[in-house]
Structures are given as C-alpha cells and as structure tokens.
C-alpha cells in the first residue's frame, strides 16, 4: 500500500482536505492545534490503494512542541511515497518555508495552495505554474472546504503517486535542514514575481468584528454574554426536546414493554424494565441535547472566536500561571475533557502543560451537563433550573481559577506566547451536522457500553439479596452506602446517591443511568418526582457540586497519566479534585443548613 502524509502548518485545512479525500470525520476547527495526533484512513487513488495520514500542524520541521514532535518522529520513522503539503494561500509569504524544507529533505511532494476562496476574496494572486517550476514540485490551488480545484488535485496526486513507487525515508532531519538566513533568501527568490499580496489586508469583516469583539472594555463582557446566550439557547431548545423524548420512551415502556414482558418473573422483569430500559432510556433522552450542544460548539470552534478569547483572557491567565491557550482548552473541555487535555500538546513548557491539565478536568463537560439538567429540572422550578445550571458553570470556572492559583508555584513556566489570530469563518451546514452527529454517535456508543455495565451493577446491588425490600438499607447497595456514609453524610448525600457517585468514577453517564435505576422503583414511574420526594434541593445541589468537581471519568485520568507520563501527577489530580469536591459540598451543605434551608 502507498503511504501519503498530509503535512502543513497549523490551521491550514489539512484535516478538511483529509476528510474530503478519505471520507473520514477528523475534527476540524479554526484554531491552530486541533489535530494533535496521527489519524489514518485508506483511499483508492487510480488503481492503487493508499494509506493517508493526517498529521498535526507543524510550524517548522525543527519544531519543538509536543505536537510538532509527533510529526518529526513520524517523518523520521515512516517511509513515505508522497507528502501532500497544504498551505494557506493567503499566508504563502511565510508558509512557503515548509515546501522549501521538504524539498531539502528530498521527499517527493505535491503542494496544495488551500483556501483559494479566501485568497480570491482577500486579493492574493499566485502563479502556481511559476511556483511549481521554481520549487520543482507540482503546485495546485484548491479549496478543501468548498471543493474548488479538488478533482484536478486528485488527478495530479494520483499521477505523482505512480511516479514515486519507492518509499523514501528521512533520517537525521535536523542536520539536513537549511539555516534561517538561507531560508529567508530562498523564500524571497521563490516568491518574487510569482505572488502578489495586496498592499493592505482586505478582510474588512475580520477587522471590523475585531474592533468590537476585542474592544478593551467591552471585549470580555461581550464574550461572557455570548457564552451565556449559547447556554440559554441550548437550554431553551434542549429541555423540551429531552422531555418529549423521555415521555415518548416512557409511553413505549408502559404501553408496549410492560404488557409484553408481563409474563416474566418479577425479578427479571424489574431488571429489564426498571434497570436496563430505564437506565439507558434516561440517558438516551439527552441525545438531542448533545446534538444541539455540539452544533453550537462547531460554530464556536470554527468561528475563530476561540483565538480571540485567548487574547482577551491572557492577561488574567498570565497572573494565574497559565496562558490564553489554557483558557481555550478549558472552553473545549466543556464539550469533553479528553480532547482538551490532548490539546495542551501545543504547549512547550512542561510546567504550563501540567498546570493546564490540572485545570481542565473542572470544565463542566457535556456528560455532566446531562446529569445537572436532569436533577435541576427535577428539583427546581422551570424558572430556577437554568439559573441553577448556570451557577454550576460559574463554580466550574471558580474551581479552575482556584486550582491554578493554588498550584501555580508548583508548576512554574516561562513560555513565551505567540499565537495566530485567524480570520473569522463560519462552518458549512454539513460540517456542523457531521460534527454534532459524530459526537452523538460517540456519546451513544460510549455511554451504552458503560451504562449497561453500570446499570446492571447498580441494579443488582440495589436488589440483592432478593428477600429484602429493594433499595433498602439491607441491600448490597444499602450496605456499601452505609459503609461510606460517614464520609458523605456531612454532605447530605444519602447511601443511594453515594453508590451512584461511586460508579460515576467510571463515567458520568453512569450517574444519570444509576439515578434512574435507584429512583425508578416506585410504581408511578416518574423518576423526577421520585427524586424530589426523597431529597430536597440543598442535598441535590450538594450532590451536583460533588459530581461537578470530583474526577470526571476514568478516560480523563488515563489521558492525564499518559500525557503527563507520570502516575504521581494523575494521582495528584484525582486527590485534589476529590478533596475539593468534598470541601465544596461540605461547606455548601452545612452552610445552607445553618442558614435554615
């Protein structure tokens, strides 16, 4: 099989091209450093089968950060037939150094001048043929996003692949590269006459928007207002959808499932309906919320506003020992903590990376959002519950800030920050739908796996031994709950909830499914009511605080360990978040009770 690597500077559209070429769904976003690991897919080019590898962005083949190291290591270890170099045409004035370096290494390459649409709009003119002649490799303008020039590019790539049927590998990358002075000279010679840049950048839209969005006084308020609006929109549209779906699933249960399973023994029937169906159904009802959430996330990530938020927050982050990029990763963590932690690979200083990784798990991820949406709609009025939810987002921020302030001395860093601010963009409808759909699929497959396990475990614990009342103190879960009660009673968290938290260690989806199982026992079947009968809002809020702050899930811990390459660090993160969760819940619960609530 032929090996093709997609190489380019960050944020030039490598993953967009890779997706178009192979039909994959690699994560795309208007932020340098979305891809931080290799992604592979097979595709047929001509009559050859080829393996295409999407690489993280690399600024310079002599680069030094973790994501760049991935690329260098890949290039040194993997023999290739062809390298596709993706450049952002509008920035060809600086990005041309990459094809120069590749040429120096003697790798066969095709240069794709991406974002031809933007180049047109901004008035950048390039003569591909002249460039091709000077570089000694094919050069083609394309737009990976909209498809212009794509077929021509594929034809050229296929032809080049046929010419280069031998694999080429580069050893000792470093020694073979030009020094800066030579590079600057070559660059000027190559570009001269082949590229015409407008005297002034003519992306008026970006300049105008920046004047407002990066305004010294209004910038931050606008940012938080925008986040609040997005949250409101997701809540306003998502909750009714979740209720409809939940009601539909309930209806199916009472009108089809229960009559159908009626002949079965009570124990088995209870397990299937109150255990599996109730647990999975409760989580499944949140799929529309997940979909909406990531639809919004796709717009935010592709807009270029992430980099702006880095600009706006950097001053504050600097005082906390972090930088603007840490803030952006925390924002991404609101979707899922795992890719956000991987995203810190763009940071070079270990101190900064570690501190960021310590902070990210406090971002209220979409799995936790489901638990909170569920509990807050159960225990608060329709008016209060969005406010309750929003307060949890504020707690999430506060915990992150506190963590940074506490540990900043332990993880010092002096990393200079230089970050690109790309033009504002908007995703295509297709990009948005694909993103949301992939996340829903992932959530569904993933949560099903865990929930089935978690639900079975919790249900059995709740119903064994069979000769005692379900979910009572005599059941296994009652006993476990009682055993750790001394720790959780001061937080107002009862034995059943303790068991849910216990399993929530694995994944937060289990907390939701577990709640459904724990409280799904009463005859009327309305889970939300059942919870409201057994605990009051102070207990519920204390439970939510604990859920927010303690370990997000096992995968997060695993990634923390593998990225920091230190078990000690992962344990520190677990210990700190558990301690913080306990203290926060304790002070909240005892405080509220003291005040007479």
């Amino acid at each position, binding site marked *: 099989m032929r090996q093709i690597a997609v190489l380019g500077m960050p944020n030039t559209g490598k993953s967009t091209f890779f997706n178009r070429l192979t039909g994959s769904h690699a994560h795309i976003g208007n932020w340098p450093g979305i891809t931080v690991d290799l992604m592979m897919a097979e595709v047929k080019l001509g009559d050859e089968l080829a393996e295409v590898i999407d690489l993280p962005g690399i600024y310079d083949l002599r680069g*030094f950060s973790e994501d760049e190291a991935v690329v260098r290591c890949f290039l040194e270890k993997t023999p290739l037939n062809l390298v596709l170099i993706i450049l952002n045409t509008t920035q060809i004035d600086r990005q041309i150094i990459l094809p120069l370096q590749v040429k120096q290494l003697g790798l066969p390459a095709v240069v794709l001048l991406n974002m031809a649409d933007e180049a047109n709009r901004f008035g950048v003119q390039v003569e591909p043929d002249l460039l091709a002649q000077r570089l000694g490799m094919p050069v083609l303008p394309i737009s990976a996003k909209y498809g212009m020039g794509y077929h021509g590019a594929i034809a050229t790539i296929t032809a080049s692949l046929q010419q280069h049927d031998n694999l080429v590998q580069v050893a000792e990358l470093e020694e073979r590269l030009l020094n800066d002075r030579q590079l*600057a000279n070559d660059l000027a010679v190559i570009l001269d006459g082949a590229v015409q*840049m407008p005297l002034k950048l003519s992306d008026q839209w*970006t300049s105008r928007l920046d004047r407002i969005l990066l305004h010294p006084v209004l910038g931050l308020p606008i940012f938080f207002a925008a986040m609040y609006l997005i949250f409101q929109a997701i809540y306003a549209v998502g909750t009714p959808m979740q209720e409809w779906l939940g009601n539909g699933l309930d209806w199916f249960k009472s009108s089809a499932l229960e009559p159908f399973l009626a002949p079965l023994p009570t124990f088995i029937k209870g397990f299937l309906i109150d255990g599996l169906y109730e647990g999975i159904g409760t989580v499944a009802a949140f799929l529309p919320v997940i979909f909406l959430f990531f639809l919004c996330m796709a717009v935010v990530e592709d807009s270029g506003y992430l*980099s702006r938020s880095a600009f706006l927050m950097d001053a504050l982050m600097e005082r906390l020992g972090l930088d603007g990029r840490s803030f952006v990763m925390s924002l991404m963590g609101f979707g899922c903590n795992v890719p956000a932690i991987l995203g810190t690979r763009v940071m070079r200083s270990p101190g900064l990376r570690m501190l960021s990784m310590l902070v990210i798990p406090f971002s209220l991820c979409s799995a936790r959002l489901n638990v909170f949406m569920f509990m807050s709609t159960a225990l608060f009025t329709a008016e209060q519950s969005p406010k309750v939810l929003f307060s949890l987002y504020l707690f999430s921020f506060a915990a992150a800030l506190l963590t940074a302030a506490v540990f900043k001395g332990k993880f010092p860093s002096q990393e200079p920050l230089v*970050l*690109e601010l790309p033009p504002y963009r908007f995703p295509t409808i297709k990009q948005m739908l694909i993103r949301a759909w992939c996340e829903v699929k992932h959530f569904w497959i993933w949560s099903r796996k865990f929930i089935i396990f978690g639900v079975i475990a919790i249900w059995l614990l709740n119903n064994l031994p069979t000769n005692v009342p379900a979910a009572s103190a005599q059941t296994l879960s009652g006993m476990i709950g009682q055993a750790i009660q001394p720790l959780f009673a001061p937080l107002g968290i009862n034995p059943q909830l303790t068991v849910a938290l216990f399993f929530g260690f694995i994944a937060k989806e289990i907390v939701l499914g577990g709640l459904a199982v724990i409280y799904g026992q009463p005859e009327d079947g309305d889970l939300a009511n059942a919870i409201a009968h057994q605990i009051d809002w102070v207990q519920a809020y204390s439970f939510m605080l604990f859920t927010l702050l303690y370990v997000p899930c096992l995968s997060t811990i695993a990634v923390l360990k593998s990225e920091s390459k230190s078990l000690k660090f992962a344990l520190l993160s677990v210990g700190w978040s558990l301690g913080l969760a306990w203290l926060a819940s304790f002070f909240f619960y005892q405080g509220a009770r003291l005040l007479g609530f």
Partner: protein
Amino acid sequence: MSTTHLANLKPGQSATILSLDIETGLQHRFCALGLRCGQEILMLRRGWMKGPLHLRVGMTEVMLRRCDARQISITGIGKAA
C-alpha cells in the same frame, strides 16, 4: 534612525523588525509566523490590563505578550500606510 522595542509601538504605528533576541528554538517558530528581521510589522491594538499585543506581519495576524515583545527591537517607526 532611532531604535526601540516592539512593546513601545502604539496602535496604528508600523515599524521594521531589526532583531529578535530570543533562543533559537523559538526563533524558528517566530520566523514561521512571519516575525523575521526586516519584516514590516503593524500594531493593531494592545490588550487590556497589560494584556497581549495584536500585531500584523504580512498577511498574518498574531498576538504576542508584552514581555516577549520587549525582546524584539524595531526601527523606522511610522504611520501605517
């Protein structure tokens, strides 16, 4: 011609980069972003509360912290075209 460092540039002013006093590894990164000797650089805005600087070099806009901008000396300050 007078020289100073980049952090002193006011919004709307442009200048030419004279030298970058930073370690080699970082120089590659700066160079890849277009921050090279001899390049014309324009200050777009300065962040709030001693926040970062928003600059344009060629066709690329970047943000840079003030402390790092002090390591970049510039010359030929003028109004942007």
